């Protein structure tokens, strides 16, 4: 979506003040990354490697946690660049293998309002519990968002041999994520909506499930797993098909294009198979299916990095069980043209567009994509196990948005490696 220029003066002032840059040369050069929200709904944190994420957060009654206007900057690239216009869950569809039960957890219960948990216990240990509206009918302000910085392991490692000095130089750095999470209690299940914003620019999107197994859904052996003593009670297997709604806004310029890449075998070389990669433009709404070595990216037409490459976000998926028994949870990824009343991937209920009930309705007229919205489905077929009682250990499902050519080099590149960009002259 297009970058909004309607920030309140108060918000702009707060932002400048909190940047602490007034009067420095950097402040004069850098465009102000205006927060589109009040200070209390802004998250702006700098990770140890110097990467800063800035965004607005809110809770929506049905969707739960929503991140808006997500910007990233780093020590190496200090000007904040917008990445996303918004990201949130677009549905959580939970059918039981018994065929007797199916829930649309966002639209039949909601992740916000009274189902949004106030953080307590060790929910936010080491982090900052932020207060904001729960999005419910009374807009109660509670501590609901946990913001924390967490180690993400080794960010990079390189041992470089210097032929002139004959000595090794070791580049080795620990990485960190800025982690945002809320918890929603939907019946016996408790869900964690989590976004991990890495210091290398990657955004990891996850849904975790904990709480307890359904107390009522016990079935025959071929649809469940024996839980409890002996082989008496079989807890029903079931699905969690999570679908996220991702609206990119790269560098605030909007109008991204969608590309699909496929790599196929292409004869033999002298030692191994040759592989050939081709790109297919996706310029109309549609649903898409994963294949071996297939991936998609949302690419800016208007914003390039310093190497003159178009900035883009690549969709990276991992473990993922497709629920093909429901047409609306079958597509792995769906691209639609942004429309205000197309809010949820299934069970959409907006009287303004009453026939638009699922993503399949949204794509039916195959509109040209001018402002694409990406709906990412990640499914998990949950086969209960004894260890699920009790409480159930968290099980996770999600995907990553990988910056592809957002910056001309690794944003964490140490100064000594500045010249390593492209093929070296030998």
């Amino acid at each position: 979506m297009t970058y909004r220029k309607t920030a309140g003066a108060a918000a702009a002032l707060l932002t400048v003040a909190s940047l602490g840059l007034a009067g420095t040369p950097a402040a004069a050069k850098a465009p102000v990354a205006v927060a589109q929200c009040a200070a209390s709904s802004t998250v702006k944190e700098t990770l140890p490697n110097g990467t800063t994420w800035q965004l607005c957060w809110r809770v929506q009654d049905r969707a739960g946690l929503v991140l808006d206007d997500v910007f990233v900057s780093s020590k190496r690239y200090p000007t904040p660049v917008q990445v996303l216009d918004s990201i949130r869950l677009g549905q959580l569809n939970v059918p039981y293998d018994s065929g007797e039960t199916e829930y649309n957890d966002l639209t039949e219960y909601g992740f916000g309002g009274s189902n949004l948990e106030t953080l307590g216990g060790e929910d936010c240990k080491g982090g900052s519990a932020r207060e904001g509206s729960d999005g419910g009918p009374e807009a109660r302000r509670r501590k609901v968002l946990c913001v924390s910085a967490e180690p993400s392991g080794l960010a990079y490692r390189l041992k470089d041999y210097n032929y002139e000095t004959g000595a090794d130089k070791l580049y080795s750095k620990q990485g960190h994520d800025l982690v945002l999470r809320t918890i929603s209690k939907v019946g016996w299940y408790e869900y964690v909506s989590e976004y991990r914003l890495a210091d290398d620019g990657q955004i990891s999107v996850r849904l975790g499930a904990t709480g307890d197994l359904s107390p009522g859904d016990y079935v025959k052996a071929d649809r469940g797993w024996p839980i409890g003593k002996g082989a008496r009670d079989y807890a029903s297997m079931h699905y969690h098909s999570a679908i996220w709604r991702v609206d990119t806004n790269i560098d605030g310029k909007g109008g991204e294009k969608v590309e699909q890449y496929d790599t196929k075998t292409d004869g033999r070389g002298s030692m191994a198979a040759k592989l050939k990669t081709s790109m297919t433009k996706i310029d109309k709404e549609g649903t898409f299916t994963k294949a071996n070595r297939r991936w998609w990216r949302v690419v800016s037409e208007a914003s390039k990095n310093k190497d003159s490459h178009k900035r883009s976000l690549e969709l990276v998926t991992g473990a993922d069980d497709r629920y093909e028994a429901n047409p609306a949870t079958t597509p792995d990824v769906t691209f639609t043209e942004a429309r205000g009343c197309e809010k949820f991937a299934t069970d959409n209920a907006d009287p303004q567009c009453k026939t638009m009930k699922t993503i399949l309705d949204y794509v039916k007229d195959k509109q040209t994509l001018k402002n694409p919205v990406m709906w990412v489905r990640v499914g998990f077929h949950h086969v209960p196990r004894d260890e699920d009682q009790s409480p159930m250990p968290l099980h996770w499902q999600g995907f990553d948005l990988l910056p592809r050519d957002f910056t001309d080099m690794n944003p964490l590149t140490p100064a000594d490696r500045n010249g390593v960009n492209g093929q070296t002259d030998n």
Partner: protein
Amino acid sequence: MRQYRKWGWGLGIASVTAVIAFGVASWQVNAAPTPGASPGAEQPRVSDPDPGPEPTAGTGNDALTSAEVEKAREIAVTPELKEKAKDASGAAGPEFLSADIVDTDGGRRAEVYLYDYATNNLIKQVVDLGGSKLTDSYSAAGLHLPASAHEVDTALDLLLADPLASEFKDAYAKATGSQFAGKDGLKTTAHVFKAQAADPAVAQCGEHRCLRLIVEAKGRYLDLGHLIIDLSGRTVARLS
């Protein structure tokens, strides 16, 4: 603990050297040590700003404030709706379900969702909060949002007053090991139920607004999945 202290040092150094790194200054401003924390105790690794009092109105796409929700509701429930629409318990005026900020480039607008039990329509009222006026109005049958607390309460009352209350009481006794003695202490939520397969007892659910209750008592969930409360028809049915 040791690892944490090292992290703290790293950030301190970064704040000296990375003069142009955004946010470092704000960390210095906001991340004051937690009052009363003992030396060596774990400190927040991120800033922990004071949220301050709730503003009257939000900024940009901020969630609606409680004052904005109240204002939007007042405008959304027109005199006509107040008179002709009905809520879940049959009283005059529509059932209020939710209010949300509309994501727009312009000023702040709210969409208010109401349910009219007189017509079984979901109503969306778009309210311009700055201009204090209703700008758009839409309604349709067969569409549902999650249940309000009032609807959940009403559904539980309907169930307890129905002959099928005996099944509720059986489920209570099975889950808790004691006799049901009243609503106190129950934690009740619900999800909207729409008939999928042909089941004559609940086929109207979808056009009607129906709930399936989730009731927790004494830390246990009651097995009530087979009982459907039709709020529109004010009936209770048992799934076959």
